[in-house]
């Protein structure tokens, strides 16, 4: 992201954000509610457009691309929404199979891939269940499976993947994110409030305050940061 600013509903949400994420890196974006964390993910997916600045995905500038051309760019990105955003009229298997069927892949290949991916997220037994029958943690794992089925992602985006989950389930989601990076070598960006979870998975940390980046560095640098907001955020998050 190169000098990106964004206004939503007449309010400036992001101001002059410049940020680059490398392959094999897990970036945790931290900050208070309304600081613009999720907006960054939505901009990377081109679900919204910036007021100014440029956004590059895999070297391609996407901020002014028309919706049709964006479909190709989005195939390089996997997204896990906050509540999973599973299609509630489809079963778990159909949710994971959705992008494959849209791509016109044969039914045998779809079934094989769905079973393989659901096995990867340890949810093979839920294939015929409806989303409302799943717990919060299971929904996030199905959402990860669906994102993986959609493409061979170069980038994975996670919007609060552990929010509202118990510590054990949160830990399993964090492990899944780490496994994904190790196996698929994807670059990951995780938006979270939870410093604990961020320290488990992230290799780099970014703190936002009122739409501006006030910290960008490693975990050790974050712990020793002198900014009063970061110190307060750090202390309160670990309580």
């Amino acid at each position, binding site marked *: 992201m190169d000098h990106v600013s964004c206004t939503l509903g007449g309010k400036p949400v992001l101001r002059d954000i410049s940020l680059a994420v490398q392959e094999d890196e897990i970036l945790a974006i931290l900050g208070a509610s309304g600081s613009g964390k999720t907006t960054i993910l939505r901009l990377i997916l081109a679900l919204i457009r910036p007021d100014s600045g440029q956004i590059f995905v895999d070297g391609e500038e996407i901020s002014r691309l028309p919706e049709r051309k964006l479909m190709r760019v989005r195939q390089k990105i996997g997204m896990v929404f906050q509540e999973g955003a599973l*299609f509630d009229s489809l079963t778990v298997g159909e949710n994971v199979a*959705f992008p494959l069927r849209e791509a016109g892949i044969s039914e045998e290949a779809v079934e094989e891939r769905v079973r393989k991916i659901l096995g990867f997220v340890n949810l093979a037994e839920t294939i015929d269940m409806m989303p409302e029958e799943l717990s919060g943690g299971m929904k996030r794992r199905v959402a990860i499976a669906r994102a993986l089925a959609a493409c061979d992602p170069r980038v994975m985006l996670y919007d609060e993947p552990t929010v509202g989950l118990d510590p054990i389930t949160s830990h399993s989601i964090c492990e899944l994110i780490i496994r994904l990076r190790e196996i698929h070598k994807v670059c990951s960006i995780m938006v979270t409030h939870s410093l604990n979870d961020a320290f488990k998975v992230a290799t780099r940390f970014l703190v936002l305050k009122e739409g501006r980046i006030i910290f960008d560095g490693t975990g050790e640098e974050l712990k020793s940061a002198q900014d009063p907001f970061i110190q307060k955020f750090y202390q309160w998050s670990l309580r």
Partner: protein
Amino acid sequence: MWYPRCDGLLLSHLGYPYMGFLWEALPLVNDYLKRFFKDVQDLAVLCFWAVAGIFRRPFYLREIIEQMDLLGVGSLPIVILTGLFAGMALAIQLAVELVVFGAQSYLGRAVGVSIVREMGPVLTALMVAGRVCAGITAELGSMSVSQQIDALRVLGTDPVKKLVTPRLISAIVMLPVLTVLSDSVAMIGGYLVSVLISHQSFPAYWSSAGQAFTGQNLFGGVIKPFVFGFIIAIVGSHYGLQTEGGTRGVGRYTTHAVVVASTLILIFNFLITKLLISLYGWRT
């Protein structure tokens, strides 16, 4: 702001109290007009892409059949009941008035013309708007607020093609079918009244009614639901895709969609009637 800034209170002091009110009302009018024109623009864009979706691959045949079942078969009971009682009520009213002129024998024709040209298409469309338009907005609205529409876009699927086009096709196919059914039931309702209350014979009613079924009347009776079906699907989908503000927003947008769709149906009914009268030279 495009208008000159001005202190309303100052104008009031200068002896133009109404001017102060006007200046203060301007921002509201400005916001309202902006919202209105944005709505019209978004509707036009949605119409374009939804219609273009009919001719572009992939074709979601399963979704179209599902929607036809939901919209068509699901609306049958309400449409039949509406048609039956509207036909009966209309026949009673006309029977009472026609007796005054000694024209009872025209009951079938009067009921037929009223039902086929006006009441059938409008009543059916209004009932379907209440049921289906609300359903479309609530369903797409729930998908919007739970980020399922965003998920579709992220997964490389065009939400308009996947969700709006099948609803549009099913509405423009099924509403004329429902209207023909409703018209038929309304005619039967009128017949029941003519036999039981007006004491007419079977041939008298139906031979009179047959005069109403001219090509022009039938064309007008089918072209209207085609347009109304378009309005119901597009308005319902438009407000569904625009929904924000959680479950409360879903309720608000659903109400709004039904109000706008019903109003547009009545406006377009007048416009189509006027157009058909101009084309066919019906006596007014």
